[in-house]
């Protein structure tokens, strides 16, 4: 007989989700009032999926910083498959089909597999992880992700001794993803979008495969149905809408490094002391705030991850 212990009550249990969301609205309307404009706000429910997760575990890795609003998280996106400006992904990904969806996990492993998104959702216990996200463009957010450690998935396929790196690939589907179509001057990026991690980075408990945010399934513009979240690296490492995960012997070439290797590297660890060639990384603007704040080494996760890079030249970790 299975005896299930009732989990301890948390704030999430006593605060209704809708109320939780209204709090954000309330703060915003307060701001608008203070700004002297009694105008209706332009935002409505920019939420896409709307499917709620129940029984989310909390995580000791979560920050208690103020969350970025759901409106900002779902309407200010870099997702070039759905257009180049920040507003495009929310608009152009509306009809993106995320069911059925399969992820192939393959390469240097003993039991490669293809797993459907529904199986992932039912098989892996989901947690809420409130992480800072720092974009290479010097803006940042605090996002309550829903997901599970990538390590849990990788352990299932049993990596071989030769597996040193992990490569991730986004879906290619120009029909659905207008940004992947040929433009006036060729392709914007060399599709499919690819990213990579060293195996120990991938196995780090901070590294998350995310299937949701703000307690609901991922909106399309945020990388539905499943994406990577690597909070100590610049946002472009956190690849969206993943269709394949490959264990590799050699370091994979990630899309942005292939595009401009003088500007984007493989490691892309957040580092206020290594500037991007075209702008300073010393400060960042938290979306929703007006002025910039200092950027922290490893985006504030040095305690958990700095040891991964012992003996490496920090200047090479961009």
């Amino acid at each position, binding site marked *: 007989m299975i005896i299930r212990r009732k989990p301890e009550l948390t704030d999430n249990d006593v605060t209704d989700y809708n109320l939780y969301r209204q709090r954000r609205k309330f703060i*915003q309307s307060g*701001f*608008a009032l203070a*700004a*002297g*404009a009694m*105008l209706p*706000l*332009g*935002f409505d429910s920019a939420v896409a999926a709307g499917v709620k997760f129940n029984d989310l575990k909390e995580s000791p890795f979560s920050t208690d910083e103020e969350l970025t609003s759901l*409106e*900002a998280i779902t*309407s*200010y996106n870099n997702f*070039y498959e759905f257009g*180049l400006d*920040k507003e495009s992904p929310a608009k152009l990904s509306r009809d993106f089909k995320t069911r059925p969806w399969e992820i192939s996990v393959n390469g240097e492993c003993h039991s490669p597999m293809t797993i459907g998104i529904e199986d992932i959702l039912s098989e892996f216990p989901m947690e809420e992880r409130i992480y800072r996200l720092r974009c290479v*463009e010097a*803006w940042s957010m605090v996002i309550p992700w829903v997901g599970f450690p990538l390590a849990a998935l990788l352990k299932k396929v049993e990596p071989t001794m030769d597996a040193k790196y992990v490569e991730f690939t986004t879906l290619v589907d120009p029909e659905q993803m207008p940004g992947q179509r040929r*433009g*006036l*001057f060729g392709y*914007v*990026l060399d599709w499919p979008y690819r990213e990579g991690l060293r195996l120990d980075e991938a196995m780090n408990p901070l590294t998350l495969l995310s299937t949701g945010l703000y307690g609901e399934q991922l909106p399309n513009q945020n990388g539905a149905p499943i994406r990577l979240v690597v909070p100590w690296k610049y946002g472009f490492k956190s690849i969206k809408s993943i269709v394949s995960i490959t264990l590799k012997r050699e370091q994979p070439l990630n899309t942005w490094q292939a*595009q401009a290797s003088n500007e984007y590297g493989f490691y892309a660890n957040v580092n206020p002391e290594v*500037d991007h*060639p*075209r*702008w*300073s990384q*010393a*400060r960042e*603007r938290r*979306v*929703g705030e*007006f*002025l*910039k704040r200092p950027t922290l080494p490893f985006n504030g996760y040095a305690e958990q991850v700095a040891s991964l890079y012992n003996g490496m030249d920090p200047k090479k970790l961009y």
Partner: protein
Amino acid sequence: MVLPGTRIDLFGENRLRTLKTFLFIALCMPAATLVFDLVSGALIEPVEELTKTTGIWALRLLLVTLAITPIRKLTGWHKLIRFRRMLGVFSFTYMTLHFSIYLFLDRLLSGEEIFTDLTERPYIIAGFTCFMLCVPLALTSTDRMMRRLGGRHWQRLHRLVYPAAIAAALHFIWLVKADITEPIIYASILALLLGWRLRVFMIKSDRRSGTKRSNNGSGQGSTPVMGQSS
């Protein structure tokens, strides 16, 4: 009804004044929209949006300003010249807003950051160059300064608008991350506008040297001639 032989003056004095008022209001619209969006809280990233919008309008108006002379010559609507100063001054106004937002809101007046920008970052150097080249043009845009300088000097000084526009186009090309379609479109329009001037200039100098040597030079026919201002 219009009697035969009556010329319809599209740009009569009164009508010109009305059109100028409309133009003034129209040119204020991008700024007004920004302020409205800012106050109503519709901007997710206000500083970024302010920077981008003021920058793109500065460039657009600079190109429109540079298009006045070619359009005049090609269509014969000479009174278009009456709108040029307003367009130019508005371009400079948006440029000034753009530069101030960068200085105060983006770089928070950090001398160190601005210094690095100005010494190591080509797109900033280009943008700053454009702005600096435009300052004397804005300062000499009044009737009084025009008179004080005299037409010829004024005109010579205002040729600085060409390098300024090239710097502005480079500023845009160098700052984008991946897709250069949009900046290339602007740069192509500029190339067209400057190319037209170059052609006119070459025909003119060709004709001048032609008449000096002999009379049967090239450059005949109905070619446009550079006016008193461009």
